[in-house]
């Protein structure tokens, strides 16, 4: 049960991703947001070399996730590090909440922002609790109070208090990243800088951490600047996405949906990749796709079936969806071989996006995408031609709407 569940839901990250994408992309695309961080003609040049960042001007919205994405050497990390003065710009100014960062002492500026880095960057000689409490202790919060707050934060990021006594080397990569996020949140900073935080963990854990970050962000509404080289991560997380090109040029800065739908130039189009059309489906709901009834069989019914195996399957379509007693999908039974249970494809939760609907169809051995309700029980199936029709429909509407 557990295994087939995992198989069914793995191919894409969580269950609510595309909804969040679509929902959170909308306000950022509007103009009602306030600026939190501003880059004004920032250039960073290392010695004689070509500039790492060239004449960058951009505004980062308050309370939103802005993702810097691009190939290596495009200046995305350098740009991030100029915000907390880990790197000083050659020319130009950066303001945070209206204040020029170069006028704020570096150490106190850094303490006023959370920072999460690749492979967590935890201090190996401090326990998990003390790691989380680091910035509080630097801000002279009494030890007991700092530890108490640290323990609360472990809970916020989904770690048990028991983990607090361990050293970082005794945690898994995913747990270390959670501690890294907890540490960044400890002093409750309005700005969170995240430098490829999830790139060192495996894809399954990464998807979990992304969902976790989105969940936290719904409650906390921090201004998050997130650096990644993974365009998929960028579109999943970003309210706005800034695509950097080699040489430190900002190629496109727009809502994730727009980057996928309308890349401004060949560089962006190439960078977002071949699957961008498919990924863009994550921004349209699949409400118009009809859900058809499907033949299901519970375990006991299947038992009867194999007992009467000599008899040929009764109808021509043939595929039967095996379900458990709560009507949750277990796998498919093919008309050719009535006894074997084939693992199912990804699940389409009602109300999800066209991307999910299409993936459910494509990944199903029966060519039928299994639709489930919030409780996870089967409500029916979606069919490929109808999903494609809905996709075409969405495109026409967009054309008309623009």
């Amino acid at each position, binding site marked *: 049960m557990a295994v087939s569940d995992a198989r069914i839901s793995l191919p894409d990250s969580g269950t609510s991703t595309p909804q969040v994408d679509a929902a959170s992309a909308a306000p950022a695309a509007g103009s009602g947001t306030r600026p939190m961080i501003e880059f004004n003609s920032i250039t960073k040049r290392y010695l004689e070399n070509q500039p790492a960042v060239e004449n960058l001007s951009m505004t980062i919205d308050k309370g939103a996730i802005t993702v810097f994405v691009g190939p290596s050497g495009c200046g995305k990390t350098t740009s991030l590090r100029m915000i907390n003065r*880990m790197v000083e710009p050659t020319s130009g100014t950066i303001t945070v909440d209206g204040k020029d960062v170069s006028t704020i002492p570096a*150490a106190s500026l850094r303490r006023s922002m959370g920072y999460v*880095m690749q492979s967590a960057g935890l201090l190996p000689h401090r326990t998990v609790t003390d790691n989380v409490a680091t910035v509080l202790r630097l801000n002279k919060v009494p030890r007991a109070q700092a530890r108490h707050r640290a323990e609360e934060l472990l809970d916020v990021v989904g770690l048990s208090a028991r983990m607090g006594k361990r050293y970082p*080397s005794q945690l898994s990569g995913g747990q270390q990243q959670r501690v890294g996020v907890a540490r960044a949140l400890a002093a409750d900073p309005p700005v969170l800088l995240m430098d490829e935080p999830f790139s060192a963990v495996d894809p399954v854990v990464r998807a979990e951490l992304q969902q976790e970050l989105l969940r936290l962000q719904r409650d906390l509404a921090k201004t998050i600047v997130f650096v990644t080289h993974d365009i998929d991560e960028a579109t999943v997380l970003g309210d706005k996405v800034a695509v950097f090109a080699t040489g430190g040029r900002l190629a496109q800065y727009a809502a994730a949906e727009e980057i996928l739908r309308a890349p401004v130039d060949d560089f962006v189009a190439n960078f977002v990749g071949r699957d961008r059309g498919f990924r863009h489906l994550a921004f349209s709901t699949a409400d118009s796709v009809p859900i058809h009834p499907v033949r299901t069989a519970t375990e006991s019914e299947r038992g009867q079936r194999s007992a009467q195996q000599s008899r040929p399957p009764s109808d021509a379509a043939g595929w039967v969806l095996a379900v458990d007693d709560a009507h949750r999908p277990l796998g498919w039974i093919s008309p050719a071989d009535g006894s074997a249970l084939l693992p199912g494809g990804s699940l389409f939760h009602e109300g999800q996006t066209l991307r999910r609907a299409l993936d459910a169809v494509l990944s199903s051995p029966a060519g039928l995408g299994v639709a489930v309700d919030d409780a996870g029980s089967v409500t029916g199936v979606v069919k490929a031609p109808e999903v494609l029709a809905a996709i075409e429909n969405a495109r026409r509407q967009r054309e008309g709407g623009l």
Partner: protein
Amino acid sequence: MAWLVANFSEVLSLAGLHLYQSVVPLLISVLIAVPLAQLARMNKTLRGLLLSAGSILYTVPSLALFVILPVILGTRILDMANVMVALVIYAVALLLRSTLDALESVDDGIRQAAVAMGYKPFMRFLTVDLPLSVPVLFAGLRVVSVSNISLVSVGALLGIGSLGSLFTDGLKRDFVTEIVIGIIGTLLLALLMDAFLVLAQRLLTPWLRNDGGLTKATAESNSDDEPAVVSA
């Protein structure tokens, strides 16, 4: 053996002198070598200068140094301070390189993380760089501690009391037992110091102790929280 029993208090006080003359310079040399190494780490020119100075100093014969130092320091030739100052010079010369290696053994990512969190340089050095360099630092300390204990004996040639006095006295009197006891005593002292340093390192690096022992750690924390389950 009978000789040892008869002279036990004498041997013990020589051992005490020996330990004193090797441990005090060791401590002083750490206090000098650590800041020097950090300076060397920050400045390339200084680094070359300090490392060559260290190598050159280490090649000066110890006996020569013991004799020259009183002239420079204005101490009397039989002053224990001569031996100790000489040992500090050797120890710093040796420790400089290993301390530099120790500081450079700290993962730069961790250092960056500390900077990003808002550590000021000096605090970062004391509370992040230094503790994390302890394993490599102690490897260097163990070498210097043994080297110090052996060098202290040379002072006996000048008549400065230590277990080395047992060699010089034994040679003068052609009395092998005394020489052997001097050698064994020195060896024991070196082993004792080494054991002490190993223990100190273990105490200073609790995070390295359970390395890889995830299951053990889990078991421990479980038993903390749910003793009933464990006993059942």
